[in-house]
Structures are given as structure tokens and as C-alpha cells.
């Protein structure tokens, strides 16, 4: 590969963390004025490559060339000095400070005294130049997530960054904020900057990128212009096969409605849309897939159904019984179980061992509860059979759960929730961060459960997963349900459009 005078080149970059190969001879060519997307699933190696380019990690081997010149970054600061800047998924902003102070914090001047007035003028000028309008004196905690992201970008531009890296920039934005971002990125690229963003969302690549490089399992599998790409093609490059085959074998006969929500409304968390009147239902023996980009109310929906978040308006029925006023515990007793998307932060206590995690939700119910006491022996027995049945790799049931791999943790989480066949199961992002084998195991469990007659609500950002497993699919967008498709009717373009907010005529 020739080293052009123009452009940034990553050449044969390799990086391992312990036994895991994060980047395996990655080659990447970036051009000025071009918006470049790095596409891949979780764990494909995109963040690692970008972290190497921004100086956070040192590559094990390989070279980086900035416009023909070989460079070596020993720290993020080296990269910053060379004009490379990264906007992380979790913003590095001080909430109590003003926009100006946050920008000054990252600036590269050496002066002792802060020249705020000049800096404010300069911030305003840079903002005007690139179409990013933020009040320099606003305090960060007063700003929306979209505005904060603008501040992060301004931070980079202020210190003269030439190459902008954005890590999953729209994961915390509403769809309208995301479009604003695409416009801003376009302007930046037109102004002659290098713009790179990491994503796992196919539609985003098609919407915003000029060029896309697809990574899978640490390797580059393709590098295409947007004109050469399509959602279908990108999807198959990303997962390594064409459309995944449907896993459903035969139809189970869906029974009565197991779980139903009507007009569900609840307040939004910061950065999400909340629920604005969701009506849906799932029957016994059926899987209802809820597709959608993160931030459209998935977390709120799951938590409201499970009973750990209050509904402002609307009703919920479990097996025909109105449970709107019941708390999570009584819903649990009536057969509603919940696998949250935040495995270690919510579904399990990382420092507890497997036995105590088995107790987490049922410690008040017979037979695990005996009066005021907890029956750990019984919990241990359950833990043992779970470990056996699900083939959990752990040194013992008294191992702290945080020491296990993601796949094993998920097995424990799901295993616990479906121990007694639930009437209804709400499961969110069940295979996030898992490798193929573990994901398959999870899917098998869910299908098995479906055959046994549980009504399953599957919430996932992974469209493939939804399409593989669901009997019916709905799309959640800005807190409402957009369209219902049955298994045969569902296709990617219709769903993708709905996820992006457009309603095609549903078949």
C-alpha cells in the first residue's frame, strides 16, 4: 500500500489484551474532507483502533502515518499535539463548569493566567465557523445531551484538531439530535477536516458516511464508498453471513394474552424519550420483538412492565389481571420475570457469588424465605443445578459473579429468571457483548421457553436477533409503537425506516 502524502494511514496495527486479539493487522486509510465510518458489532475492534490512533493505547505492532510522516504516540497528549481529537461515548465534561472552562481545560496554551474574554471570543468564532452554536458561559449541567456533545467537539476544534474521532456519537442522542450531528459532521468534513465515527448502526452509515470500513473480530473485512454499499451488504459484511436464517421451528400456538400494556406513559430519563403512550401485548407461547435505536424508551418500557418504574398513565395486565398498581414483587409472584439490559449494574450484584445472586429477586418468596430468614442451602442447590444445566464455566458456586465472563453472567441471570417457568418474561438486550456461541445458547433458551408457553417480550437493538426470534415485531420510536409486523411480513427496510422515524405503509 503506497503511503500517499495526503491522508492518515494505519498500517498493520495489531493489539492484544491478554488472550484477546482486539486488532489483527488492521489497515485503515483516512482521507481529508471525508466522513469515514468504522462499522462493526460490539467487540469487533473499532474502539481499540481508534484508541490507538488517539494515543490512549500503544499498538503491539504496526505503524501510523500522518500525511506521509510516521508518528508514534506515547500518550494521548502526543496525539492531541498532532491535531487528533476524540469524542468519547462518555463525555469528559465537568458538570459544574461552564462551556468555556471545559474548553479551556483541554486547551494547549502554556500560559498561567486564563484569558477568558479572548477565549470566549475565540470559542464563539470557532462555533460560528463550524455551525456549532453553544453559549460559552452556559453551565454544562444546564445543557442537553446533544449540546454537550457539541461542546466536546468544540473542545477539539478549539485546540486546532484536524482529525476528529467520534465513538458511537449517536448512542446518547435522540434521532433529531442525531440528524443535527450528521449536518455538523458534514460541515466539518467540507471544511477540510478528517472525520471518523464509530458505529454499529447500519442506517447511520448510510445516512452520514462517505466511506465505510467494516471490522469483524479484529480484522478489516471491507472498505467501501457509500455508493457501493447498502444496508443489506453492510449487514452481511458485519455479521459474516447473508440474512440470518429464521430460528423459529414450527409455530407454537399462541394462547391467551400473557402481558399487555395500554397507553403506557412515563417520564424520560436524561437523554431518552420516555414512554409516550405505548400499547402492545404478547400472547403465551409467543415472542414479541421490540426493535428500535437505543434511547427511544426501551429501558423505561422494560422497567415499567416489570414494575420497578412507576407509570404516569396507562395500564398493564398480566394474565388478564390488572397489575398497574402492583409493585414489582407482586408481579414477580404472579409470574412476570425480567432480565434487564444492564447485566452487572442491575441484574446481578457483581461482588456477590452465584448463590447470593440466585437470591436477589426471590429472597422474600417461599421456599427461599423462611420467616425472616433466608435459606441459603436451597439457593445453593438451585445454583448448582443452574450451573449444570446451563454449562456455566465457574470454579464454583461461591465465585464472585464479576469474575465470570459476560456469557456466563448472562446465563446465570437468565437462568435465575426462568427457573420457574414464567407467565411472561421481559428480556432486554440479552446478547449484548456476548460471543456467537454464548448468544446462540441464549437464543436457544428463549425459544425453548416460548415452546413451553411463556409470553416473551424481547427488546433488542440488534435487528438480526429480532428477526430471527420474533413471532411479531414492533418498532419503538420516541416512546411510541410504530407499526406491527408479523414474522412473514417483517423486512429490514420497513423496520429500518420505522426505526428511523418514517412510517411506510404497513402491510
Amino acid at each position: 500500500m503506497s503511503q500517499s502524502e495526503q491522508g492518515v494511514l494505519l498500517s498493520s496495527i495489531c493489539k492484544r489484551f491478554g488472550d484477546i486479539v482486539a486488532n489483527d493487522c488492521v489497515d485503515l486509510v483516512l482521507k481529508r474532507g471525508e466522513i469515514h465510518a468504522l462499522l462493526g458489532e460490539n467487540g469487533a475492534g473499532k474502539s481499540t483502533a481508534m484508541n490507538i490512533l488517539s494515543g490512549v493505547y500503544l499498538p503491539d505492532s504496526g505503524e501510523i502515518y500522518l500525511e506521509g510522516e510516521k508518528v508514534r504516540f506515547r500518550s494521548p497528549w502526543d496525539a492531541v499535539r498532532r491535531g487528533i481529537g476524540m469524542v468519547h461515548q462518555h463525555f469528559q465534561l465537568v458538570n459544574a463548569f461552564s462551556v468555556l472552562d471545559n474548553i479551556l481545560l483541554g486547551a494547549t496554551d502554556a500560559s498561567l493566567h486564563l484569558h477568558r474574554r479572548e477565549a470566549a471570543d475565540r470559542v464563539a468564532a470557532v462555533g460560528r465557523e463550524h455551525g456549532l452554536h453553544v453559549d460559552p458561559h452556559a453551565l454544562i449541567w444546564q445543557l442537553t445531551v446533544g449540546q454537550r456533545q457539541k461542546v466536546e467537539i468544540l473542545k477539539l476544534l478549539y485546540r486546532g484538531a484536524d482529525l476528529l474521532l467520534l465513538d458511537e456519537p449517536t448512542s446518547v442522542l435522540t434521532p433529531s439530535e442525531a440528524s443535527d450531528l450528521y449536518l455538523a459532521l458534514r460541515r466539518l468534513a467540507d471544511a477540510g477536516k478528517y472525520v471518523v465515527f464509530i458505529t454499529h448502526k447500519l442506517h447511520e452509515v448510510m445516512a452520514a458516511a462517505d466511506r465505510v470500513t467494516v471490522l469483524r473480530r479484529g480484522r478489516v473485512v471491507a472498505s467501501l464508498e457509500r455508493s457501493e454499499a447498502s444496508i443489506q451488504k453492510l449487514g452481511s459484511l458485519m455479521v459474516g453471513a447473508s440474512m440470518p436464517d429464521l430460528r423459529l421451528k414450527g409455530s407454537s400456538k399462541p394462547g391467551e394474552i400473557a402481558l399487555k400494556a395500554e397507553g403506557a406513559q412515563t417520564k424520560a430519563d436524561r437523554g431518552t424519550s420516555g414512554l409516550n403512550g405505548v400499547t402492545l401485548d404478547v400472547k403465551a407461547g409467543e415472542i414479541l420483538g421490540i426493535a428500535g435505536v437505543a434511547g427511544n424508551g426501551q429501558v423505561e418500557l422494560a422497567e415499567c412492565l416489570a414494575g420497578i418504574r412507576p407509570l404516569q398513565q396507562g395500564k398493564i395486565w398480566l394474565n388478564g389481571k390488572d397489575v398497574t398498581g402492583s409493585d414489582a414483587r407482586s408481579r414477580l409472584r404472579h409470574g412476570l420475570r425480567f432480565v434487564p439490559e444492564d447485566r452487572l449494574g442491575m441484574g446481578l450484584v457483581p461482588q456477590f457469588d452465584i448463590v447470593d445472586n440466585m437470591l436477589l429477586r426471590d429472597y422474600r418468596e417461599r421456599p427461599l424465605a423462611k420467616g425472616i430468614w433466608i435459606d441459603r442451602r436451597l439457593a445453593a442447590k438451585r445454583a448448582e443445578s443452574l450451573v449444570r444445566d446451563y454449562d456455566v464455566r465457574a470454579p464454583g458456586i461461591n465465585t464472585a459473579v464479576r469474575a465470570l465472563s459476560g456469557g456466563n453472567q448472562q446465563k446465570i441471570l437468565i437462568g435465575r429468571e426462568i427457573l420457574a417457568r414464567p407467565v411472561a418474561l421481559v428480556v432486554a438486550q440479552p446478547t449484548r457483548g456476548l460471543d456467537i456461541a454464548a448468544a446462540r445458547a441464549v437464543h436457544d433458551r428463549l425459544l425453548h421457553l416460548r415452546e413451553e408457553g411463556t409470553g416473551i417480550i424481547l427488546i433488542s437493538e440488534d435487528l438480526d436477533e429480532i428477526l430471527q426470534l420474533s413471532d411479531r415485531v414492533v418498532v419503538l420510536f420516541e416512546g411510541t409503537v410504530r407499526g406491527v409486523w408479523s414474522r412473514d411480513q417483517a423486512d429490514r427496510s420497513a423496520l429500518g425506516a420505522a426505526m428511523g422515524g418514517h412510517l411506510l405503509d404497513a402491510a
Partner: protein
Amino acid sequence: MNATVLVSMLATSVAAASPLLLAALGELVVERSGVLNLGIEGIMLLGALTAVAATLGSGSVLVGIACAIAAGMLLGLLFAFLTVTIRADHVVAGLAMVLLGDGLSSFAGHGLVGIDIGQNVPPLALPWISDIPALGQIFFRQNALVYFSYLMVAVVWYFLYRTRPGLALRAAGEKPSAVDVVGWNVFRIRYLAVLFGAGMAGLAGAFLSVAYLSTWAEGMTAGRGWVALALVIFAGWHPIKLLGGAYLFGFAYILIAQSQVLGGVFYMISTYVMQMFPYLMAIAVLAVMGRRAMKQRVGAPEALALPYVREER
């Protein structure tokens, strides 16, 4: 109470407030960087003793004060090592510091109790400004350390709000990862902040033993270290408000002393209520701040007392 008495009471308040001001200024900087040092009381005690011992040994108050600052900084170094490097619990480490400072000063000061060192820091009337009616007498006929405290308020304010390293220090107390990412060393910032705070606490102790009085007595700080902690909270971690708060508390101290002279059961009770004043005010400020939590204009530094772990490269 007539005007002259009031003016002279205010003047004594300023002197009484100055050790509080010095110690609290130091702690303000420390807490702003994200470290909670509960050990001020112990460091002040050691500073007080060291000042007396060093003055007696060298014959010069200046040397005494310098040694007090150094002693404070030594304890500060130990504290910083425990909290920043070892990442031990700030609260436990601070309480241990109180024990250490108290024990060391009592032990080493055993033979020095009550000895008059014969000299102290004399009051120094500044030319011209000390002739301003009222204000002149209150603020400008004090000893050199009091003038130093005025200066330090300005210096700390300027440093924190108008300089780059000050910005980094404040950020270290709010979101250390944001500071690390832009090339500052959070550990170094916190070490320096703790050393500064401990030095100031040592100086405050010295003030008590060689400027305010001229002697060492066991436990002579009488809880001022804890009041300094209350003062930092009361001032919302802001140096200018700290100045006002310190003088308010100083005035309360003087009132307490005066009312004790008047005696009687009624005054006894109100003495204690007045002594509670700094702590009650601090709680009130915390409660109000809590309610206005969304208006994070006055808030405890977000990362206060949370040890910082830097991720591996």
C-alpha cells in the same frame, strides 16, 4: 455597648478568626481537588507545638513559624501518600491523622506546657490605612500573619478561578478522568493540594501558639480544626465567602468569651448555643444546597473523597 467597644470587639474577632481562616483556606483547596482531610485538628496541634518548640530552640519566631509549616507539610505528605497513592479511605486516614497529631504534640510538648516563649508576632499597624476610622483599627492594626491571611484569600481566589492550574485542580475534584485525559497528572495535583492544606493548617496552629498567645497548652486548638471543616462547607467551597464566614465565626467566638464574663445560667446556655452556631450553619447550608442540587452553583466537589484510579494503557 457603644461604638468603641464594638470596634475593639470586631478587631479582636479578626484576630480570633484568622487561624480559622488560614486552616479553612488550606482545606478548601484540598477539598476542591477531591480529597477530604478530616485531620486538620491534629495537624494544627502539631503546628502549634512545633512553633513553640522551634521558637524556644532558635530564639526566633520566624523560624518557629517556618518549622510549624514544615511539620504540617510532613503530616500532609503522609496523609497524601495514604489517600492518593495507597487510595485508602479518606475518612479513616483523616481520623488517624487527628490521633497522630494529637498524640505527637501532647507527647513532645509534655515539658513545654505553659512556658511563656517570651515573644510573639507583634501587631503591626500599616501606615496610613490604619488611620481610617473604624475599619483601620479593625483590619489594619493586626499582626503580620493576619495580613498574610488577607493575602492568601486573594491568592487562593486568583489561583482557583483565574489560572490554568487552578482550573485543573477544580476539575480534579469534580471529574478527575476529564483532567487526566487532557494531560494533567491528577495524583500530582492532589499531592500538592494536600501539602498546601497541611502547611496552612500547621501555620494556623502556629498562629494560635505564637501569635495569638505565646505558649503551648495541650489540646489548645480546642476544636478549631473541626470548625474549619464546618467553615469550608458553610462557605460553599468558595474563598471569598470563606472570608466572610470566618469573620462571622470569629465574632461568635468573641461574643462567647464576652458573655462568659457576664456569667449566670442564662449566659451559660447561650454560650453553648453560640458555639453550636458554626455547625448548625454548616448543616443549614448543606440542606439548602441539597435542595438546590440541580443548581449546582454551590455544591460539594463531585469527586470529593473518591480515590482516583487511572485506567491502564
